[in-house]
């Protein structure tokens, strides 16, 4: 009986979505706001990647809210997951292939992560994608050598510092008479690495914050034996 009700609900939902999206013409986006941003962004923000210009330039406060949600989620998860028991068994160390592979991959992944973060205003990519790659890079050594302790205090410092840099950049714009998180500095030449004002700095802060948060979260999840609070 309960399953029947659920199936009726799911069928109705499918019908509703089909009716709603039948009214839109595919590939005929009206682009009322989008067209304005496309015309305006290259001169005003100076980022070649217009998605980055939208994320950090036109709605920076939204991105601040996003990293706040991520911070709240990872802090709550860390609280709920509990600390590692001091007498917990260590996982056996990884084999030769795993250790050599990690030693080879770790520097490469660091370089790729920072490349993606720092070129976020020129090419596809940015703080979120690069931050995830950095988190994965710092999780790899934990797989190969489970006996190395995780420096949660250091991760918290990186995370808090990056968040503070993001907010201070926004406040600096306020001090100069602009709006909160308005891009500062000169736009520079479109398409060069040092261009688009403070956007690369903001994305670097986002990348370090996301990377530190997610690396800490994965390290906590990897502990099997914990003291539950």
């Amino acid at each position, binding site marked *: 009986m309960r399953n029947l009700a659920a199936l009726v609900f799911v069928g109705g939902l499918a019908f509703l979505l089909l009716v709603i999206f039948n009214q839109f013409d595919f590939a005929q986006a009206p682009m009322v706001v989008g067209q304005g941003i496309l015309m305006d962004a290259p001169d005003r923000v100076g980022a070649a990647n217009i998605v980055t210009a939208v994320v950090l330039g036109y709605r920076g406060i939204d991105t601040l809210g996003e990293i706040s949600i991520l911070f709240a989620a990872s802090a709550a998860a860390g609280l709920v997951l509990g600390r590692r028991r001091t007498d917990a068994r260590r996982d056996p160390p990884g084999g030769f292939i795993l250790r050599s592979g990690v030693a080879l991959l770790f520097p490469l992944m660091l370089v790729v992560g920072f490349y993606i973060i720092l070129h976020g205003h020129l090419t596809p990519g940015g703080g979120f994608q690069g931050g995830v790659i950095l988190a994965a890079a710092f999780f790899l050594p934990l797989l190969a050598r489970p006996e190395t302790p995780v420096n949660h205090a250091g991760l918290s410092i990186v995370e808090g510092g990056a968040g503070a840099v993001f907010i201070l950049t926004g406040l600096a714009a306020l001090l100069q008479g602009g709006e909160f998180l308005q891009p500062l500095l000169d736009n520079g030449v479109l398409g060069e690495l040092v261009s688009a004002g403070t956007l690369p700095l903001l994305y670097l802060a986002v990348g370090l914050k996301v990377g530190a948060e*997610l690396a800490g979260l994965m390290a906590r999840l990897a502990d099997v034996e914990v003291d539950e609070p």
Partner: protein
Amino acid sequence: MIWVVALIVIMMLVAAVTVLLVRNHIAAVAAASLVSLLLSVLFALLRAPDVAMTEAAVGAGLSSVILALALRRLGLGRVKDA
């Protein structure tokens, strides 16, 4: 174009149904990861390279790792017959 898109969509839907029906939990996580990976290919075809990159890194990579680690902690992470 139409055949590539249709193939990807069909594979995606099959993987999504597999997630709900397969008994082994690790296999379900792998199928969910496959959905994300195929979705990122679709995003790349739809001229959204930023979103494609995020979906590949977050959805197919990080999210599966988090799910697999949680399974290990639940004690359900055996590959053979969960």
